């Protein structure tokens, strides 16, 4: 644990120190002391991320000297994230270290991956060429484009891929349906962003004949846990502290199911301390042959993906709506704080949105940026709300398909 980072955050950031409400903390953090720090939820900072940034970094922020990403994301809650370049690289190092150690993957090995959006509008890139990577937009992932993507991958000969489970499923589907050739060069696929079922993992392995490993993380802190060759998802102790808390914020012992909270070891620009991921899991102490000392995290729920269904029964990834939310935020200075899309019928959707402040034309902007042309013609009802999560089901996905539930 980075005690210095935590102490400094509470000394420098009024928003954090006020949350202590007079509780004295011994910043040497002897046993039991860390638990006195109140857990932090995304909702508390979503409307004003600046409140989590120490004043000494504001000049860098306004000068454009920080790394900016955002979570728009699979939990339906939007947040701007800032890092210093150096801290971000420190934070990513453990993952690279273990990729190399476990699977022989290095930073210069060619990879393929997908991105939600780069820059909305007519100039939006559908494919990006990087020094060691080929990246595809998740926009318009219909069969024709997926076949094209697959063929581009074949030509590029990647050593590995980073895929969300729903994208991997689409690639399996397209390979089987069109009898596409093997991607012989691929020897490792890293799954991230959503829950990975055993069935899908087996299908991916069978389709691509390579090693599959799961990586669990979020942009706020980068990698949280990584799967070793023995199949255990180890916490990245060098990057985050992982805790399981109950609904009242009490720490649960190993083996007990609860909400996953993380504390960054590296992000000094936005020191996420005891921060709720919105996912649920269990920590387990296991002696693993891989040599990793980190506890094993068993994910129980969270970002499970459902499909958008069209009337002709085409399965469309819900990322088409995430793209719409990201585009709206790109064009309106991050006005959407939370969103949720509910498919009520094949061409009927309810879109629930929490805005930072009223902005005109959000429904039109949202619909025209949905990343699937045929879905732009469906009927959309927009409801602007004050709060969305957690809902009555406890489910935290940004998309819900009610068609299947009713059938």
């Amino acid at each position, binding site marked *: 644990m980075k005690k210095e980072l935590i102490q400094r955050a509470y000394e420098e950031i009024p928003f954090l120190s006020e949350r202590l409400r007079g509780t004295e903390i011994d910043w040497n953090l002897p046993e039991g002391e860390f638990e006195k720090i109140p857990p932090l939820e995304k909702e508390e900072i979503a409307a004003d991320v600046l409140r989590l940034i120490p004043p000494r970094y504001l000049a860098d922020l306004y000068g454009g000297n920080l790394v900016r990403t955002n979570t728009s994301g699979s939990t339906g809650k939007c947040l701007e994230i800032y890092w210093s370049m150096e801290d971000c690289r420190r934070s990513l190092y*453990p993952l690279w270290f273990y990729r190399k150690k476990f699977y022989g993957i290095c*930073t210069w090995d060619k990879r393929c991956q997908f991105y939600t959006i780069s820059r909305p509008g007519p100039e939006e890139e559908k494919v990006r060429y990087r020094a060691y990577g080929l990246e595809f937009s998740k926009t318009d992932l219909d069969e024709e484009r997926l076949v094209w993507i697959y063929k581009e991958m074949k030509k590029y000969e990647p050593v590995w891929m980073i895929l969300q489970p729903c994208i991997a499923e689409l690639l399996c589907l397209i390979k089987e349906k069109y009898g596409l050739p093997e991607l012989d060069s691929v020897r490792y696929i890293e799954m991230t962003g959503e829950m990975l079922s055993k069935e899908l993992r087996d299908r991916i392995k069978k389709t691509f004949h390579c090693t599959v490993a799961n990586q669990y993380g979020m942009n706020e802190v980068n990698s949280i846990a990584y799967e070793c060759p023995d199949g255990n998802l180890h916490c990245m102790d060098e990057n985050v502290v992982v805790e399981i808390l109950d609904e009242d914020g009490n720490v649960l012992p190993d083996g007990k199911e609860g909400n996953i909270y993380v504390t960054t070891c590296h992000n000094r620009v936005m020191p996420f301390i005891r921060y709720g991921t919105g996912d649920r899991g269990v920590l387990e102490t296991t002696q693993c042959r891989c040599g990793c000392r980190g506890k094993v995290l068993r994910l129980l729920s969270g970002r499970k993906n459902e499909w958008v269904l069209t009337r002709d029964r085409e399965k469309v990834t819900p990322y088409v709506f995430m793209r719409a939310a990201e585009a709206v935020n790109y064009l309106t200075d991050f006005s959407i704080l939370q969103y949720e899309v509910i498919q009520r019928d094949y061409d009927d959707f309810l879109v629930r949105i929490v805005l930072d402040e009223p902005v005109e034309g959000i429904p039109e902007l949202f619909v025209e940026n949905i990343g699937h042309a045929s879905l732009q013609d469906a009927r959309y009802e927009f409801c602007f709300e004050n709060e969305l999560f957690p809902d009555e089901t406890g489910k935290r996905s940004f998309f819900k398909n009610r068609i299947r539930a009713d059938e």
Partner: protein
Amino acid sequence: MDSIYERITELILLNAPNEPEEPLNEDTRLLEDLGYDSIAMMSLLVDVEEEYDFETEDMEESLKAFETVRNFVEFVRKNVE
């Protein structure tokens, strides 16, 4: 300075994305002063592992090594001895 120090600083400079503004010394920071990114970090790690025939098992130790030239030289020495 001994030959290990000289060789390692040579490798640090070879892999550095940025030219140092001042001559390299023990306090030079790899990330802040030399612009080390993920590719450079892994490349330097692989270079020293191959040249000095070791494979580091300790993630935390290797992460600390990338803070300064001094740390990195010490890290290699420890793994070679």
